[in-house]
């Protein structure tokens, strides 16, 4: 069934029926039910909202609170430093792609907070559905700017709303790495992020983050507990060993973030599919660039805590 062409509707009546009109009795109600497309006469529909939660589930009020709590951590605890922040465009959509690490990753809030405070642009963090399944956490995550990583969501954000979206193609394979495997990038999914950037006609901006691995290193993983709780992994972190119940706090590792050159794909947007080999090539190249940047940054790093 193909999308249609409208023909004209039958009756003529102002499209703004009021409650009084509805109460006038059966006959007039029936006529009033018939719509009339007269765009010039239509006013704004009344939309009596009570909260500031938008279509993505974000609330500016909650984001303000989150910024106040996280701001000091960003400045004094992790002392986040940026390189090449000017490579992130001041307007237009772009897909930010970064490495991902730490049992509870410290990289996502650092990147989102940094771009929002220093560039004044919102970043939508695309995340796995595991976030949405957790009570409280899932709701909080969407209130502060998290969105489920679904191709439809990414397309709407990037193409229709020209926003910045942040994605970690390694997913839980990245955050579930143990300390011994730090800074070794995992597989970049199936290259879905390249495909969505192509469809949306936006560049991919690779980002390399150093420090998140040491903020909450995983010493050991319990496959039994993970299975029992339905989680992708159940980590025993250095933080838990050191602080017990305070193990949810990050260690004060210095976080450095380097923005790499944007990757533009010269392809027509809005195609139903793109060459699989091209997608895998681009995905592999971006992964390679981030991996090399990480090695480069690690070569320069003198101390985990002071950078």
């Amino acid at each position, binding site marked *: *069934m*193909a*999308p*249609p*062409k*409208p*023909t*004209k*509707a*039958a*009756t003529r009546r102002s*499209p*703004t*029926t009021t*409650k009084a009109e*509805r*109460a006038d009795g*059966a*006959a007039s*109600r*029936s*006529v009033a*039910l*018939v*719509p009339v*497309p007269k765009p010039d006469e*239509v006013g704004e*529909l*009344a*939309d*009596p*909202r*009570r*909260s500031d*939660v938008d*279509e*993505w*589930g974000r609330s500016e009020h909650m984001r303000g609170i989150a910024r106040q709590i996280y701001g000091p951590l960003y400045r004094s605890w992790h002392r986040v430093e940026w390189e090449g922040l000017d490579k992130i465009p001041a307007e237009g959509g772009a897909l930010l792609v970064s490495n991902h690490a730490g049992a509870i990753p410290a990289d996502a809030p650092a990147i989102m907070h940094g771009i929002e405070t220093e560039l004044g642009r919102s970043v939508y963090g695309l995340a796995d*559905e*595991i976030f*949405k*399944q*957790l*009570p*409280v*956490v*899932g*709701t909080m995550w969407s209130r502060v700017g998290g*969105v*489920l990583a*679904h*191709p*439809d*969501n990414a397309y*709407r954000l990037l193409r229709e709303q020209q926003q910045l979206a942040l994605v970690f193609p390694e997913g839980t394979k990245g955050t579930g790495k143990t300390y011994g495997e730090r800074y070794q990038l995992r597989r970049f999914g199936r290259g879905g992020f390249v495909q969505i950037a192509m469809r949306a006609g936006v560049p991919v901006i690779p980002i390399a983050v150093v420090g998140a691995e040491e903020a909450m290193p995983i010493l050991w993983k319990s496959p039994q507990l993970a299975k029992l709780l339905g989680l992708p992994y159940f980590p025993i972190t250095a933080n838990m060993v050191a602080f017990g119940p305070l193990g949810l706090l990050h260690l004060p590792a210095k976080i450095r973030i380097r923005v790499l050159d944007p990757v533009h794909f010269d392809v027509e947007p809005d195609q139903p599919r793109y060459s699989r080999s091209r997608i895998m090539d681009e995905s592999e190249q971006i992964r390679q660039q981030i991996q090399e940047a990480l090695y480069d940054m690690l070569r320069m790093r003198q101390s985990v805590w002071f950078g």
Partner: protein
Amino acid sequence: MGKRVLVTGLATFWGGRVAQALEADPTVDVIVGLDRYEPTVELERTEYVRSDESYSILARIVKAARIDTIVHTFLAVDSTQMSSRTIHEINVIGTMNLFAAASAPGSTVRNVVVKSSTLVYGASAKDPVWFSEETRRAEPPRSMVERSLLEVEGYVRDFAVDNPHVTVAMLRFSNVLGPDITTSLAKALELPVVPSLFGFDPRFQFVHEIDVVRAILYVLQGRVQGIYNVAGDGLLPWSEVAAICGKRTIPLPPIGMGLLSAPLGRLGLELPPELLALLRHGRGVDNRRLKQAGFEYRFTSAGTVVDFVEALRIRRTVGETTPGYQYERDVEQFFRHSPAVIREGD
């Protein structure tokens, strides 16, 4: 020659409303309404046929009355109202018979409108914020209502493919609220405290009952073809829906509700599995395709909730504002067919 319309489910809220609206349309010559129960609203010229939706009767009605337009509103979407067996009979078997009758050799049917539901998208953690008409559901259906609606849509698609000369429109309606309709969601909002799931505040979308009827009439009159989501603009967190209704939410445990729902149902808190899934994950559907086809909504999601709660308040204060209607067969027959009655247009 005007349209000759068959409306299924005349005794249901939608069938009655659509028939009322069609009666006001001068291009409609004949309205035949089908149901097992008597109409619940006052109708002037609709012919009521008491019948179940068995194939032989449907085929005879379609042929005898030269039906050219079918409005299929008789689809059960609320599993608290009937057993899953009845839902299967109504939705799957009824639809199958209806479309079999409509595609019989020599059928005069040229226009079909089906009232489906956004329940076909399900509700899960893997859902996008907005479902478009093409988005596939993330998880297989678990409840009978959803399974049966998916089967119904399958029959509609098959019919549309096999009968390219027929204009078929399938409308998927979001959560309906309004002054008059009763749904399990409306009942939940009428409780002194509104149930929610602890730690979840999903976003809901609503469509006003008036916009539902208007949408059905719009696609009918414009001969619009295709699948359309019908839902008001905007998504509201469940807590905000409760706030608009002036109520608090009471958090229920997020796990084990499957076991709790039966005893809670006895206490008057009906939580069908579809509503529980919504209270956890919510659902949004993209309504832009129908707008592009020229339809204009009268209510946003928030506006729908406000109109619902205003009607609720007045009902609570002064009782029902419209008098009840009782179908009297002999009286209706007299007004429609007795030579003693002088009818306009004769």
